[in-house]
């Protein structure tokens, strides 16, 4: 069952379509990523899901409800962590947790939640005195405190150190294991690749691709990268003629090719034929990073 449905969503600011026909559906219990470069319309899209913005056209449904017309009912089942929102500077962590817990009919106990987010020794600290990472962790705690069915996290790990980031990822996986659907906005590839079941890549207000992380990587032109330092120079023309080749690069005597498994086999045959040894031969799968650049660049070229 789809808990979030976005159909042909459009949002225009000052004559410019920031979101221009975005559609996707998030299934119950999945971690769904919204990935895209800065200014692609990711945040505007999820703000329509949260009911913070009214779409100019299209339809948004959260558990079948309209997030604007049925705001209160949606807010009870949807927890949100916003970008750049603060709390009262002199409110302590504990008071913030208690206050936000009081907003919901069936909240979580804030103590284990604070423990989980490493806030236990900061309970009496005022919001204004927290570090950036601590503010971020409190904001995640407040998104979860209402015991939501869906949680929307916008730039979840911004400002967190690598350790806190990994702990937070684990927390999100645990939250999902508890049956909560997660909508995750990010521009951080490692995060998307590690957490998301499916990803919508948004670029210039449109969905450029929607697939699993592995599917997105497979789709990209150079899914496999081969690099080596040949013992003797190779003929450029022969390299260019390799099957399914996406790109060739020479740097400091090292050759980097991207293509598919077919390209790998052909390179090995080519090297053997010329009796060239490939020093430090590396064959790696492309990362989501590569796929992302590929998907978002293509559009730029088309324009």
């Amino acid at each position, binding site marked *: 069952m789809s808990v979030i449905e976005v159909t042909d969503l459009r949002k225009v600011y000052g004559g410019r379509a920031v979101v221009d026909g975005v559609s996707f559906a998030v299934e119950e219990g999945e971690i769904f990523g919204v990935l895209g470069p800065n200014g692609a319309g990711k945040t505007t899209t999820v703000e329509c899901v949260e009911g*913070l913005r009214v779409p100019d056209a299209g339809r948004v449904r959260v558990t079948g409800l309209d997030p604007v017309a049925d705001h209160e009912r949606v807010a009870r089942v949807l927890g*949100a962590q*916003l970008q750049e*929102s*603060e709390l009262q500077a002199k409110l302590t962590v504990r008071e913030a947790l208690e206050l936000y817990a009081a907003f*919901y009919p069936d909240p979580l106990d804030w103590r284990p939640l604070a423990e989980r987010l490493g806030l236990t020794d900061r309970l009496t600290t005022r919001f204004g005195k927290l570090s950036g990472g601590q503010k971020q962790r409190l904001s995640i705690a407040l998104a979860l405190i209402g015991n939501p069915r869906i949680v929307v996290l916008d730039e979840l790990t911004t400002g967190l150190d690598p350790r806190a980031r990994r702990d937070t990822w684990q927390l999100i996986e645990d939250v999902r294991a508890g049956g909560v659907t997660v909508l995750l906005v990010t521009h951080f590839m490692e995060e998307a690749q590690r957490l998301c079941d499916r990803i919508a890549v948004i670029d210039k207000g449109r969905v450029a691709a929607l697939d699993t992380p592995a599917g997105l990587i497979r789709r990209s032109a150079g899914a496999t990268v081969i690099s080596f330092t040949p013992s003797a120079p190779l003929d450029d023309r022969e390299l260019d003629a390799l099957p399914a080749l996406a790109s060739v690069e020479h740097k400091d005597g090292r050759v980097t090719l991207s293509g598919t498994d077919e390209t790998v086999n052909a390179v090995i045959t080519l090297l053997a034929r010329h009796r060239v040894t490939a020093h430090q031969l590396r064959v790696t799968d492309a990362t989501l990073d590569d796929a992302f650049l590929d998907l978002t660049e293509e559009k730029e070229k088309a324009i």
Partner: protein
Amino acid sequence: MNTAVLRAEFRLFRREPGAVFWVFLFPTLLLVILGSIPSFRDADDSLGGLRPVDAYVPIAVLIALIMSGVQTLPQALTGYRERGILRRMRVTPVRPTALLSAQMTVQGTVALGSALLALAVGRLAFDVRLPGQPAGYLLALLLAAAAALALGAVVSALSRTTRIAGAIGSAVFFPMMFCAGVWIPVRAMPDALARGVTLTPFGAAARALDQAAAGHWPGWDHLGVLALWTVLLTAGAARWFRWE
């Protein structure tokens, strides 16, 4: 009204020493300082035989309302908007109006508490008689508080940032203090000036409080002016206020 929000806002107000001083303590402190001047305790013909210290009790009451209305309230509301606190509230089942109404309740309550303190200190320290028409006094006070809060909401609605709110607040502050009679009590003003001043919210409030203090029912003209300002300012705030 959400009681959890209201309790939090009360607690937060107590943590603002500046707001506590200016709204709650300063008006009474000013009364004590003026009352300590010997000549302020002599009957004055331009005040209809009242002593200046008698005339300054209603003025101290109004200073509390002006402080919260044009200084602390717009700062708080604009800050909540500027820093995304209202936005954060919008994604909870509790509407951000809960935060606005809680903040106004807190400011209004503290200002009324400050008024009680001024009345009590006036009575105990300077033998100023308590209002002769308490019901009329209370009515005028509540209307003046409503006008002050509505004014604060308008200032906040028109200010994109807390800096702008501070600037507008200061620009409005001195004329409001003048109209309330801080420099010359309204009843001692020349006729033409007094007529103009009683068309402003705090000028009308000053006259209404004077009349109720003297034991008369406050004039409906003054109460009407206060009510009209409250309605206009509330409508303006509702029209112009932005959540983000």
